[in-house]
């Protein structure tokens, strides 16, 4: 039951993307190769943003709207299924 309170004080309501599309912060972006993935889910558990989503089959997909490009997923992947590439200049 999500309800809004009728009082003017600093009460905030949950929202994904509260700071906007933080994917715009990226300098480097992760590139995921599903064929190399061994479904260890280290990238999923270590992503600080929760931008690496776990699929039903335990593979992963990366939400590029919010991925901040920290590179931890690539760093913790033991089979190099994720590598980093520089974002194209806009």
């Amino acid at each position, binding site marked *: 039951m999500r309800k809004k309170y009728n009082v*003017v*004080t*600093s*009460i905030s*309501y949950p929202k994904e993307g509260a700071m906007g599309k933080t994917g715009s912060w990226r300098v480097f972006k992760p590139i995921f190769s599903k064929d190399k993935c061994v479904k260890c889910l280290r990238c999923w558990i270590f992503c600080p943003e929760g931008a690496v989503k776990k699929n039903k089959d335990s593979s992963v997909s990366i939400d590029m709207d919010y991925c901040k490009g920290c590179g931890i997923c690539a760093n913790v992947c033991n089979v190099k299924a994720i590598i980093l590439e520089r974002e194209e200049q806009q």
Partner: protein
Amino acid sequence: MCKRMQCKSNNLGKGGTTMKNIIINTGNYIAAKAAVMAKPDVVAAYPITPQTTLVEGIANYVASGEYKGEYICVESEHSAMSACIGASATGVRTFTATSSHGLLLMHEMLHWAALARLPVIMCNINRVVGPGWNIWADENDSISQRDTGWIQFYCSSNQEIFDTVIQAFKLGEHKDVALPVMINYNAFILSHTSMPAEIPSQKEIDDYLGKYQPLWRIDPENPVTFGNIIMPADYEKVRRAMQDAHENAKKLIPEIAQDWKKKFGRFNGDLIEKYRCEDAETILLAMGAIAAESKVSIDNLRKDGYKIGLARIRTFRPFPAEDIVKLAKKTELIVIDRNISCGYEGALFTEVKSALYNKSDAKVSGFIAGLGGKDVTYNHIEDMCKKAIKGKLKETVWYGFEEVKK
């Protein structure tokens, strides 16, 4: 009609009784009784002289089983207010008490409670602020908290303490207010002095207060974040809403006072308690114990032919500016402050004058008296009034010091 009164020293009769219940006890124990009867779910407090007997009073009620809520013996006053805020945020009634340095230590969290619109109810025993250490009556402690957004009452009798504590819950919890309320009374003169107080039955209090309906709450079934980053324009709206709540309180306090009079037969004054002001040419404004003493002075001065009345400022925040303008219609005013804002004047003196600005050209005289717990008797007050009547004073006088050259 003859009213039968039954005096009991401690315990109250359980259940309703058609006989009035009068207890004779100190301000602190009576405040503790009121607090416990309001049934706060959480009390979090830290001892400081001269509030100690209040928290000890509550501890006694815990031991006797009369208080069934959670009593947290926190490790500092800052934590006391923080715990009350945490509890109140979950949607329960809360109460605490402190004095002087304890109040000052809570200062940050007083702002927090008010900005959070949480009706934490607190008794503050007005005590001198050190250094040096001094436990007697002085109002600098609570006056220096006037900007925190709390509603502030100043009581002048133990009966009024009881009534005001209960009314404070009603006022603070009102949906148009939702603000914390501070009930102030002077160290030792009230906190440790026994006076009779008539106590309604528990059922009458339960019916009067009803169940607390919070405006917001921390609740796993409706997750919200309270108190994250807020940008300037949004913050200003929070402040404006608090100001509006104070304006609402200004209207509600007289209503609550009249309602209390109807239900319980007692009137302690609403924003201001007026005594013999009807045909007064001079009105004395004071708070707390000094104001209580002043009634005797007023009677004596009247006997000497002075047309003088007393306006006891019971509510300091919200400040009863409009009522003060009404008082000044055909009178001059004398203000006694038991506080000093060093670098300027006593707070009540300044605020009375600012209320009158552009609305009245009444003469206002100011006295500082009773700082550091110095005794202020009705003789002193009579003397002050005689010195100030007919606009003789040209500036604030610190009563008891050498006369300032006029």
